[in-house]
């Protein structure tokens, strides 16, 4: 097929040929039918009688004369010859007209199909010019609301969604690199300063070592968190049968063992088993992040309560702290990546700014959700909802916060 020139391989060419051929065949059929009809009409010779009558009338005596007969015979021959001539002329003209018609229809078909197909050309042009880095262009097809306009609008919608997704992604990469630059700058500057000091003492070097250690700790936490987020976006999350309540107990136990010196008391109220399907490591990470977050904002010595239960086919784990709480405005942003209320404060306590967005990502990858309820000065409650196995769960978890909306409502199944 590649031996054909490009214009002959186009849809436009095929439409033109098809259109012209169909038109030509229809016209040919029509001309042939007319020709045959004319032919059969002329062969009936109905006009002889009329001419005979006419000849008889001229004479006026009611009898036919031989000379008159001869005239009539001549007339017949003349008429036949004239008819044949007409039919022949008509056949020639018709064939010529058909040829002209075919050529004209090719031209007209080429122009019309070009006009009809031009939006496709425009769509192709725009698609050609769009680079992955610049998705801001749109087709913006004008004209009637037909199939092609709908196609172009669909493309535009898809481009808008891709554009938004890419922008989120590049914003995230910019944020991540920004977060990595700070500890890098700490390391670089400390090394530069101590290296350029000819009188640096062993103490100076030790001090620099400590600073670099702290900075690399922060970087590895950040890299861990970035990796956790990236893993959420990959399709190969495990789907094991797990007990959400047991996971919560395990996480609380680990936390007690590791952070006993943090001076928060963890109280557990976990109830019976809550069978869910999911990735155990991911769910434990979500719960650990929530617990870490709660203990970070809890005043020294205050209790952090971890509880679990089920409701309407959903299992929940709730963490309640008695910290300073979160304003309504901040509650909409705390799950955003790299959002921090007070950068230096979170930084000194070692947060990457990704903890809660990881929790949300894990919840969503398990068809669940995470919610917060808080009033400034009165602590906060975070709840992780995950659908239970084998229970008819609604599309969204119940609109209820454990330990916030007063006592558990009657429809809560005691766990």
């Amino acid at each position, binding site marked *: 097929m590649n031996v054909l020139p490009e214009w002959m391989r186009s849809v436009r060419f095929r439409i033109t040929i098809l259109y012209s051929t169909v038109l030509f065949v229809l016209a040919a059929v029509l001309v042939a039918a007319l020709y045959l009809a004319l032919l059969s009409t002329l062969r009936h010779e109905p006009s002889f009688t009329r001419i005979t009558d006419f000849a008889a009338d001229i004479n006026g005596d009611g009898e036919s004369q031989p000379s008159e007969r001869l005239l009539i015979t001549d007339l017949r021959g003349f008429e036949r010859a004239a008819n044949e001539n007409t039919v022949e002329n008509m056949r020639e003209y018709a064939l010529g007209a058909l040829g002209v018609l075919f050529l004209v229809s090719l031209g007209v078909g080429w122009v019309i199909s070009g006009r009809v197909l031009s939006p496709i050309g425009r769509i192709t042009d725009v698609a050609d010019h769009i680079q992955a880095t610049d998705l801001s262009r749109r087709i913006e097809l004008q004209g009637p609301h037909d199939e092609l306009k709908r196609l172009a609008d669909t493309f535009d919608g898809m481009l808008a969604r891709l554009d938004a997704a890419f922008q989120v992604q590049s914003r995230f990469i910019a944020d991540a690199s920004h977060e990595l630059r700070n500890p890098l700058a700490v390391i670089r500057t400390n090394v*530069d300063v101590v290296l350029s000091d000819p009188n640096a003492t062993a103490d100076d070097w030790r001090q620099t070592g400590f600073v670099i250690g702290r900075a690399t700790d922060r970087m590895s936490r950040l890299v861990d968190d970035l990796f956790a987020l990236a893993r959420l976006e990959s399709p190969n999350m495990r789907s094991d049968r797990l007990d959400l309540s047991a996971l919560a107990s395990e996480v609380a136990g680990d936390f007690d063992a590791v952070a006993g010196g943090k001076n928060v008391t963890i109280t557990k109220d976990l109830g019976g088993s809550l069978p869910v399907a999911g990735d155990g490591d991911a769910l434990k990470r979500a719960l650990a992040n929530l617990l870490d977050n709660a203990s970070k904002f809890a005043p020294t010595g205050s209790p952090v309560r971890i509880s679990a239960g089920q409701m309407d086919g959903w299992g929940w784990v709730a963490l309640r702290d008695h910290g300073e709480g979160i304003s309504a405005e901040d509650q909409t942003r705390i799950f955003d990546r790299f959002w921090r209320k007070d*950068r230096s404060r979170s930084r000194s306590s070692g947060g990457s700014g990704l903890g809660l967005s990881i929790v949300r990502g894990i919840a969503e990858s398990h068809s669940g959700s995470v919610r917060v309820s808080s009033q400034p000065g009165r602590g906060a409650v975070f709840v992780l909802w995950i659908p239970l196995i084998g229970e008819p769960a609604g599309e969204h978890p119940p609109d209820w916060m454990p330990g916030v909306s007063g006592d558990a409502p009657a429809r809560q199944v005691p766990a």
Partner: protein
Amino acid sequence: MRILVVEDERDLASAVAKGLRREGYAVDVSHDGDDALGKVMVNSYDLVCLDVNLPKLNGRALARRLRSGDIATPEGASPRILMLTALDEPEDRVAGLDDGADDYLAKPFDFSELTARIRALLRRDAGRSGAVLQSGTLKLDTRRHSATRCDAVLRLSPKEFALLHYFMSRPDEVLSQEELLEHVWDEHADPFTKTVRVTVMTLRRKLERDGLPQPIETVVGSGYRLRGAA
């Protein structure tokens, strides 16, 4: 020359301050925007190293307020601003410079580049283009940290060097003890000691050359002056 380092990353702020002090600058440190604002209103800084993402008041807002003149600085001075930030997109640089920064350096940076940029910014005040200041027989190389008189090397302490640097960037100007204390010493200096007088005295002694006049003269009741042709 006196510099304020505004940086919430404490490990970075302390390293920058340490390195700059070794270069002979008087350095104060702030860890948030509000604190920096307070310091700028009380002390006369020649330059502010300003981070952008700061708690309380961010660096760009602080730069705007410094430039708009609604902050009463001592002597009405407006310090040079060097923005030091991890935000490295061209639009961040444009925004920072438009908000009043004189220069912009992205983290992580090379410390020698930071000091070179600081020297370049401070030279703008003196209206000179090179790293070497010259005044009569005195020569001061800010990059190599060396001072000479009649081509003989002067062995100066960092404070004496900083003091001579300040004098040489303002030749023939009368500089009061208070101004010298403000620009050559940091906020830990006790304003009631004779530290300025003592340092000027030791510097003068080191500048002495037989048969040549003393370049730093006392203006009675006002302060000191470096004679440009000395």
